[in-house]
C-alpha cells in the first residue's frame, strides 16, 4: 500500500513566541523536515529612511534609537559619526572614551539578551533570560544615571555626547565591571558547558564562510563562521585604536559557535571597559555645534561594529538642514538573508534555534 503524502505549509509568525517580533517564516515541511523556507518581512516597516529626509540632522538622532531598540547607544554613535564625517567635526578625547564606554556597556546588554533568548529557543524555561536581565538592569541603571533614559537613550550627539557622566557613575561602573567576570563565569557554567545546549546547537544551522561573506553578514554571525573580521580593528573609530582586546572566532559556523562567540565577546567587552574606565581623560566631553546644521554638499558613510554586526549610515547632503538621502545598513536585516540556506533540511526546532542564534531585532530588520 502506498500512502499519499504531500508537503505541509506552516506559518511561523508573525505571531509566534520565538520570532523576536513580527517576523514571519513560511516553512514547507515534509514530515518535520523543512524543504522550503520563505522569509516575509515588513510587518514593522515605519518608513524610517523616508521620514528622516524631512527632519533635520539633530532631529534624526532619536530615530536611530528605535532601530535596534536593544542597543540604542551604538545606533546613536554610528549616525553621529556619519554626520561628523560630513561636517568634518573632531570629537574631543573624553567624548571618544565616553562613547566607547557606552557602546561596550551596550554590547554587554545586547549580548545578554541575545544569549538569553537563544537559550530560550533551546527550551530553557526563562532561567538564563532572567539571570541576564539582572545584569542588563544594572547597565540600564548606569544609562539612566547618565542621560535619564534606559532604552532609547539618545545620548551620543553630533560633536560628542549629550551630558558628561555624573560623579556617581564612575564608582557604580567600576563596581559593575568588577562583578561581571564572576557573572559571566556563572553563565558559562550554566549554558556553555550544558550537554543539552551542545547537542541542540552543534552542527545545526551551519553557515559556511563563503556564504557568510557572499551574503555580506557581519558581527558574531560572520565571526562564528571562522572569518576574522571586526570593524573595531579593521577601521578603528572612537578610541578603539588605543585599547587592547581580542576578537573571538568560531571554527564551525554552527549555532553553538555563534553562541560561544557572543559569550566570549562579553568577556572582551569587560576587558575594554576596564581599560577605558581607567584611561578616561579629563576635559570637555563634546564640542559646540550649531543647532541648525547645514553640512556642505557631499556624502558620507560611517560604520561601527554594533553588537549585531556592521551598522552603517550613508548620508547625502544637498546643503539644506535635512539629509537628502538617509540610508541604514542594518546588521540584523543582512544577517538574516542567509537564513533560508541555513535551515533547509533541518526540522522546525533546529530552525528556531538557528533564528535565535542570528540575533535579530525587528525594529532594525524592517526599519
Amino acid at each position, binding site marked *: 500500500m502506498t500512502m499519499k503524502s504531500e508537503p505541509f505549509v506552516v506559518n511561523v509568525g508573525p505571531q509566534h513566541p520565538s520570532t523576536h517580533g513580527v517576523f514571519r517564516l513560511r516553512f514547507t515541511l515534509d514530515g518535520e523536515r523543512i524543504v522550503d523556507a520563505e522569509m516575509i518581512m515588513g510587518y514593522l516597516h515605519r518608513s524610517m529612511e523616508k521620514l528622516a529626509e524631512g527632519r533635520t540632522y539633530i532631529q534624526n538622532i532619536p530615530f536611530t534609537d528605535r532601530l535596534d531598540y536593544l542597543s540604542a547607544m551604538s545606533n546613536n554613535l554610528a549616525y553621529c559619526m556619519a554626520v561628523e564625517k560630513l561636517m568634518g567635526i573632531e570629537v574631543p578625547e573624553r567624548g571618544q572614551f565616553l562613547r566607547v564606554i557606552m557602546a561596550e556597556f551596550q554590547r554587554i546588554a545586547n549580548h545578554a539578551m541575545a544569549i538569553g533568548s537563544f537559550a530560550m529557543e533551546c*527550551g*530553557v524555561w526563562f532561567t538564563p533570560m532572567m539571570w541576564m536581565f539582572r545584569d542588563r538592569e544594572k547597565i540600564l541603571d548606569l544609562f539612566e544615571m547618565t542621560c535619564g533614559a534606559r532604552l532609547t537613550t539618545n545620548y551620543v550627539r553630533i560633536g560628542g555626547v549629550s551630558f558628561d557622566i555624573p560623579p556617581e557613575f564612575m564608582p557604580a561602573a567600576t563596581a559593575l565591571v568588577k562583578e561581571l567576570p564572576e557573572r559571566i563565569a556563572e553563565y558559562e557554567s550554566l549554558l556553555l*558547558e550544558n550537554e543539552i545546549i551542545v547537542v541542540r546547537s552543534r552542527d545545526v544551522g551551519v553557515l559556511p564562510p563563503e556564504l557568510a561573506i557572499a551574503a555580506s553578514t557581519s558581527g558574531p554571525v560572520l565571526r562564528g563562521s571562522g572569518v576574522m573580521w571586526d570593524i573595531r580593528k579593521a577601521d578603528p573609530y572612537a578610541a578603539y585604536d588605543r585599547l587592547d582586546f581580542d576578537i573571538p*572566532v*568560531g571554527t564551525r559556523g554552527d549555532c553553538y*559557535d555563534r553562541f560561544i562567540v557572543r559569550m566570549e565577546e562579553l568577556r572582551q567587552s569587560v576587558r575594554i571597559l576596564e581599560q577605558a574606565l581607567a584611561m578616561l581623560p579629563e576635559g570637555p566631553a563634546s564640542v559646540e555645534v550649531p543647532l541648525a546644521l547645514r553640512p556642505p554638499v557631499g556624502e558620507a558613510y560611517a560604520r561601527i561594529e554594533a553588537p549585531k554586526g556592521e551598522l552603517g549610515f550613508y548620508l547625502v547632503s544637498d546643503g539644506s538642514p535635512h539629509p537628502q538621502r538617509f540610508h541604514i545598513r542594518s546588521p540584523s536585516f543582512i544577517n538574516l538573508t542567509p537564513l533560508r540556506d541555513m535551515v533547509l533540511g533541518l526540522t522546525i526546532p533546529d530552525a528556531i534555534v538557528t533564528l535565535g542564534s542570528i540575533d535579530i531585532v525587528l525594529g532594525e530588520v524592517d526599519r
Partner: protein
Amino acid sequence: MIFLAEWWDVRDLGNAVGALLEWLGDHGPDWLPYIVSAVVGSITIVVFLLTSLLVFAWVERRLIGRIQARMGPNRVGPWGAFQSVADAIKFVTKEAITSANADRWVFWLAPILVVVPALVVFAVIPFNEGMILADLNVGVLFLVAVGSVTAIPIFMAGWSSNNKFSLMGAMREVAMLISYEIPLVLALLGVVIFTNTMRMNGIVGWQDEHNTWLVFLQPLAVLIYFICGAVEINRTPTDIAEAESEIVAGYHTEYSGIKFGMFWLAEYFAGFAIAAIIATLYLGGWTLWGLEEWVPGWMIFLVKLYGLFWFFIWMRGTLPRLRIDQLMAFAWKVLLPLGLINIFFAGLEVLLWQENDLPAEAVLPGFAIANLVLAVVLIAAWAQLLGRGRPQYRPTRARLVKELGAVIYGEEA
C-alpha cells in the same frame, strides 16, 4: 455511633472509614459498603490532589522565581500564597473558546478525559497500610495500563483543534509516550522480580520486611523510571509536545479558559502520580525504618512524594529542551538496552538468592553494592559506546585572535 471509636488515631486515617464500613456491613445491605468506600475514596483522592495542586502551583512558581533570581508571585495574600486561588478563579471565569473549525465533540471531550488517568492511578497507591482505595493484586500492571491511556486524550486534543501546531504536538506526544512506555515497564519489572508480587502494598511490605528500599537494589531502574516519568508528564527538559518556542503550545494551543485549565491540572496530577509511584515502589512508600510507628505513615509518604515533585520543579528551572529525535533515540538506544540488562541482572541475583536459600541480611547489601557498581559501569560504558565522548560534543570556547582577514573555518579547536 460505634464507627467513630478510633477516629482520633491519626496514624491511619483509614481507621474511621474502616469502622464506618464495618458498621454499614453489619446494619445494611451487602453492596452498600462497596459503594460507600468507592465514593469516600475517590472524593478523598480528588480533594488531596486539588489541595496539593493549589499548594504546589504556588510552591513551583516561588521556587522557580528563586532559581531565576526574581521574587515570584507576591501580591495575593502573604508571600503570594493565594496566587493559585486567583489563577483557579481566572481559569474558571475566562471564556473557553471553541474555534470554528474544531471537531466540537472531541474538542470538548479531550480536556475531561485527560484528567482521568492521572486520577485513577491514585486508586492503587497506598497512603498508609490500610489507606488504599483498591489493593489490586495486579497493581503494577494497573499503573502501566492506566498511565499509557494519556496518549489518547492528548491526541484527541491535537487532532480536534484543527491546527497544524496542535497536530504536530499531538503526534510528538504519542510517539514519545509509546516509546517511553517500554523502558518504563522494564524499570518496573525489576521491582516485581525482587518482590515477587504486583500488589502495591505487598511491595511496600517487602521493603519494610527486608529493611531496605528498592532504590538501593535497583539504582539503574530508578533512574530509568524517573526519566520516563519526566517524559510522561511533559515538563522540561522533555516538554517537546508543548514546546513553547517551537510549536507555540503544542496540543493545547487552541484551548483557553477551564478547558486549558484541565490540561494544566492533568499535568500536575500526572506529576504527583509519577512521584507517588516512585515513592511507593522504590522509596519504601509509607515506611521509614520504624519511624512509621510514631509518625503517621501518610505523612512520611507525602514527604517523599513532595520531595520527588520538587526534583521535577528543579529540573524545569534548569535544563533546556531536547529535540524529538534525540529524545526518541535516547529511549531506544540507551534506556531500553540498559533496562533489559538491568532485568537480566535482577533475575540472576534473585535466582542466586532463592536457589541457594541464602539469608536476606547477607545477600541484599551485596546486591545493593553490586547493582550500584553495575549501574555506574553500564552508564559510563554505554555513553562511551554511543560516542558521547566524541570531540564534537565537548563544550568548546571561541578562539581569540588579534589579526584580521584570515578564515579558520573547519580547523579543530
